[in-house]
Each structure stands twice: as C-alpha cells, then as structure tokens.
C-alpha cells in the first residue's frame, strides 16, 4: 500500500533559523512545482528548488525571483502593510455593508418533481405554503433595514410563478418603498419558466426583473433529472430563454437570462454537450451547480450522487471546453470560476456564497428567516437549526446577532478551522456550515474528510493549473469583465 499525503499536501523544506526573510504564507504542491500564497492572498508558483532557497532565506532582492517575492508580499522585510491591511479588511468583512440579496420563497408549490430537488416542494394544488401579501410586505420591510445601498430581491420556490399575485405585489411594494430609500434595487426570478407567458414576462421586464431558470443540458438529460406532471420541461426552459432573449434583441431593457445546470450523476460524461447547450442558446453564464447529499437529494444519493473527484473531473472538462470556445470568440464564463478568480486575481471577496447571512437572507413562505438558503431547505426537511428569526417580529440587527448567525459566520471562515488555517487556498475559500451540519453533524465540520472541501480544493487546483497556461489565463482574466453583471 503506497503512502498518500493529506489534502493539504506535504511540501518539505528547511526554514531559516532566524525570522528574517520568509513572510507568513501557505504552500501547496501544484503539478511539478509549488504554489506559495502569502497571508494577503497574493501568490506565485515556484520550483521545489526555488522554494527551498526561499524557505532558507537565500533569495536576494537583486534577483528576479526576489523582486517577484517582494511584490507578492512573501518577503517579511519588504511587506507593504497598508496593502495587507486593505486586503484583510475586505476579506474579514470589516467594511461589510450588510446583506444585499433577499430570497423570498413565495410558495413551496411546484409542478415539477426533480429527482434531486433541494427545494422541498409541495404538490401544485396545495396552497397552504403560499406566502401571503402581509408576509411579503413584512419580508420586504425587513430587507430594507439593511444599510447596503445595493439590494436584490429574488423570488424562488417551489415555482414562484404559482403565486404570481404575491410576486407582483412584492415587486411593486419594494419599488414604492425604494422611492424613499434610494437604493440600487434589482429583482430576480428563479423559475422553471413553465408558467411564464408573454404578459408576465413583459410585466416583469418593465420593472427591471432579471430571469434565471434551470437547464441541465440537452433535452434527454434535462428531462431525466426533472420530472413534471405536464411534460415539456426542457422545451419550457428553452422557450422561456428564447422569449427573453428575443425581447432583449428587440430593445427591451433586460439582462441576458441565466440558467443553472444542476450536475447529477447522469451529467458526468457529458460536460461538453452541457456547455454547448447553454452557450448555444446565447447564454453568457454557465453555472455548473454540484449536488450535495442534503435534503431530498440525500434520499436519492445512491442514484444521482457522485464523489468530489468525479465532480472535479467533470468540472475540468467543462471549463476546458468553455475556455476553448472563448478562444474561438465565444463570450461566456463559468460562475464558480468567476467568483474564485475575483478573489485569486484581484484580492476581492465578492461575497460569501456559503455564509449566506453575510450577503443573503432567505425568507420562507411563512416569514421565517434563515442564515442560509440551504438552512431553509433543512428546515423544510424538519430541522430548523439555521432559523434566525421571523419577518414582522425580528429586526435585522436581531437576526445578525442571533447565535446561529454568528456561529455560521465563524465556522465559514477558513482562518478559524484547523487544516483550513494552513491551506494555501484559505484566502480565496469559504466553508459551508450548512453542509457540515448536514453531513458531519456540526457547523464546524471535519475538513480532512469533508466532501465540500474535497470538491472546492479540486476546483482551486483546476483553476490554478489553468492559470499557469498563458492562453487559458488570458481567457480567465477576460471573464472578470462579467463581475458586475
């Protein structure tokens, strides 16, 4: 049996005896070399021989390598403390303006019954989980308490168009409130598009709502994952996308719609086809959402699940194909890659997608507010652990000061986790307390055998390897232009 190292990997070197030249950093094997990441998140790659010289304090300022190490914040006698402070302030939320995305689950009803559905839906004729106008009003009022000058209200379900009157009410009510608040207000509709007709689309577009749907790839794959009572699941999604794109082409002020591809076991061998399907429709964003063994998907895991390594192989194939298409002139990007590249290449920490309470609050149909969207789904499955309050009863300050919100945030920061604190990817990574809680029994998690960690580290490996190739790097850097969309 061969020895195999931990996920951190185990580079070795002899460190200088007196602290003189080597700044705080983490190191990781990457291909034939080593990735060296400074405390501020600036990085470089070195050969093993160069790393040993660096660790021993033997690289001189006059060498080209010395200049690179100094510029990346890796030499302790050449540190730029102002820049380090700025980077840490951003990463550790010291200039946090409050949550900006507010997800309203206006109903749990859905006319689909996807094999992995996270959303814990109820049957289409069961209106007992429809959000009332009063609850929608309380949720919007609570959302407006956030001092963040940017605000997005997102409608989810279930299928949100099954409670169309409350979608309309919440949009109009928020627009009315915003006359006084003066925020930059966006709306998003996440729908399977089966109930989206011209009239609804026009109403939504007129009020600046953007559109997102689910599209798992070619028709046979999509329909294998997504079961509906009425058929036409792939056709509905494609028709909706085309309708929005046609209106945009005709001059309507609406964003290019997005489509989330949920990756099931059936997707694994079909990365290129999936990318071609999404890009071929004219979409700019490819989002390859992995399945987690949580909620409904946990029960179907033996049929639809996969290992982190299998997902990473799929992801690498899809990313490489997308990079190749970009080289041929296509302008489209992958969403997870973009989020991570903003951190890797610009030092920005756009938001914490997995510590949702920082950027996002999830409001269930009954007004219950959760520290994360996954926490809401967990509650729908019977465990309200991540519930932090209720619209109409709790203030925003009370929500954010809730012990669960604080624990979630603390558990999501790599600096606070053993193993993560030593990981080269720590400055770019966040941890999912909900995933940890569901799969390992506590928000804290155990990273050495944590599947989320295995997957995200694999994605980081793929991205850093591609960044070594100048042509691929040029494509990845070009995706940064999409960051404000």
């Amino acid at each position: 049996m061969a020895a195999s190292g931990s996920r951190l990997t185990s580079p070795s070197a002899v460190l200088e005896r007196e602290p003189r030249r080597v700044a705080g950093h983490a190191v990781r094997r990457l291909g034939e070399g080593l990735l060296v990441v400074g405390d501020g998140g600036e990085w470089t790659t070195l050969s093993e021989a160069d790393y040993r010289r660096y660790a021993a304090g033997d690289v001189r300022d006059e060498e080209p390598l010395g200049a690179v190490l100094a510029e990346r914040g890796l030499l302790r006698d050449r540190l730029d403390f102002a820049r380090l402070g700025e980077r840490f302030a951003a990463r550790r939320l010291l200039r946090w303006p409050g949550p900006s995305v507010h997800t309203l689950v206006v109903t749990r009803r859905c006319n689909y019954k996807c094999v992995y559905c996270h959303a814990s839906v109820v049957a289409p004729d069961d209106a007992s989980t429809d959000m009332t106008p009063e609850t929608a009003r309380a949720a919007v009022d609570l959302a407006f308490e956030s001092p963040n000058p940017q605000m997005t209200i997102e409608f989810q379900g279930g299928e949100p168009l099954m409670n169309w009157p409350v979608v309309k009410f919440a949009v109009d009510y928020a627009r009315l409130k915003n006359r006084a608040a003066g925020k930059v207000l966006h709306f998003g509709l996440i729908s399977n598009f089966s109930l989206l007709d011209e009239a609804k689309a026009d109403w939504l577009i007129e009020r600046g709502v953007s559109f997102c749907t689910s599209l798992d790839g070619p028709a046979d794959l999509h329909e294998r994952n997504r079961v509906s009572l009425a058929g036409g699941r792939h056709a509905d999604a494609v028709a909706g996308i085309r309708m929005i794109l046609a209106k945009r082409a005709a001059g309507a002020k609406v964003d290019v719609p997005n489509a989330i591809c949920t990756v099931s076991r059936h997707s694994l061998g079909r990365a290129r086809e999936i990318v071609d399907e999404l890009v071929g429709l004219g979409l700019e964003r490819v989002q390859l959402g992995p399945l987690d063994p949580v909620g409904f998907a946990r029960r179907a895991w033996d049929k639809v699940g996969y290992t982190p390594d299998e997902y990473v192989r799929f992801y690498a194939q899809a990313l490489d194909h997308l990079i190749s298409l970009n080289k041929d002139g296509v302008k489209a990007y992958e969403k997870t890659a973009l989020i991570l590249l903003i951190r890797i290449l610009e030092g920005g920490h756009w938001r914490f997608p997995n510590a949702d309470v920082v950027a996002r609050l999830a409001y269930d149909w009954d007004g219950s507010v959760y520290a994360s969207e996954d926490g809401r789904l967990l509650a729908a499955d019977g465990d309200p652990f991540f519930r932090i309050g209720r619209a109409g009863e709790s203030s925003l300050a009370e929500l954010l000061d809730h012990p669960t919100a604080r624990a979630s945030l603390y558990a999501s920061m790599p600096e606070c986790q053993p193993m993560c604190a030593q990981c080269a990817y720590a400055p770019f990574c966040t941890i999912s307390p909900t995933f940890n809680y569901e799969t390992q029994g506590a928000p804290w998690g155990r990273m050495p055998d944590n599947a989320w960690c295995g997957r995200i580290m694999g994605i980081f490996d793929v991205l850093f390897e591609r960044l070594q190739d100048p042509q691929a790097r040029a494509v990845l850097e070009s995706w940064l232009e999409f960051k404000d969309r």
Partner: protein
Amino acid sequence: MKKPSTPARPRARRAARPAAPASSDEVRLDFDPKSERPECVLGAAYLMIDRAYVAIEGDRAKTLGVVLRPKGERTPAALRALEADFRAELEAQRLRWAIARNNQAIREYVAANEAALAEEFAKRPAAGAPEPAADQLTDDQRAEIERLISEVETEIKEMNDKKAGADPKGVAQPWEAGRPESGERGE
C-alpha cells in the same frame, strides 16, 4: 500516564517510537513534548482522520502518544504506509508551524491595523438614504400601499375561485392523480 513497560526514551529532537506493544491492527507512536512541539503532533494527527481513527494518549507534560487505526485494510503494508503518511505530515507541520511562529508578531500587528480600520469604517454614516419610518410615508404612498394590498388580495381570491377551472398545463393536478403519458421518471 506513560505505561510502566515503556522504556525511557532519549530526549533527542523528533524522537518517536512505539510506546507500548501495539495491537496488530494499529500504529502507535510516542513523542516527547520537550523535543517535539505538541501543535505539530496534533496537527499531523488531525490530518490523518480521513484515513484512520486517531487517539491521542498520555500525560501531555511527559509524553504524547498517537494511535492510528486504519479505516481501510489493516495489513502490515497498510500500517507501514499509514505510519509513513503520518511522519510526512509531521515533517510538513514542523515547517508550517515554524513559519507561523516566525511571523506571529507581524500577523498581530496587521490584525491590530485591521481593527483600527474597522473602527474607522464603523464611524462613517451608512451609504444610501435611511429607511423612512411608516409615519414618514406620504399620504399618497400610504394610499398606494393600501391599493396594492387590496389588488393582490382580490387577485388571490379570484385565482382561488378559478382553481377548479381552466388548467391547460395540468399544473394543479395532484401527484397521486397521475403521471405524464410518457411515463418517464428521473430514476
């Protein structure tokens, strides 16, 4: 407590040796905390939990015992590989913790600067206009809100009244009532 049968160990740095007769399906190593830093041993032990059950034993002032029991096969070759893994992790932990020690003062200085930045930021007024209280809404705004609520309530009532009516896509059909004719299901 160190077991009586354990022979006295030399205090040479990084000494590690079997502390007591290990069972045939586990690896057992003892470290002298005076020559091997506990944080390195604990760090390496933590990294092993994906492939082994790990127990830390002993009086930490005198000895630090690590017992590794593989989660997979427990052949002699597997045990040797597990021990090799642990020693490689321990070597890497020595480097990682030494870097941390050497830079602790700088990290504390940067953290103090961060705290100062945070205080400065907290003193600034929040961006964007403040949320108006209900009593600050104009009469027109209040009337418009009432109109919106009235409209949505009427629409919901009409929708519910029509529930038994047209349903071209069959979305209101309960799950139990039937399946699409194609009969295709995800799994």
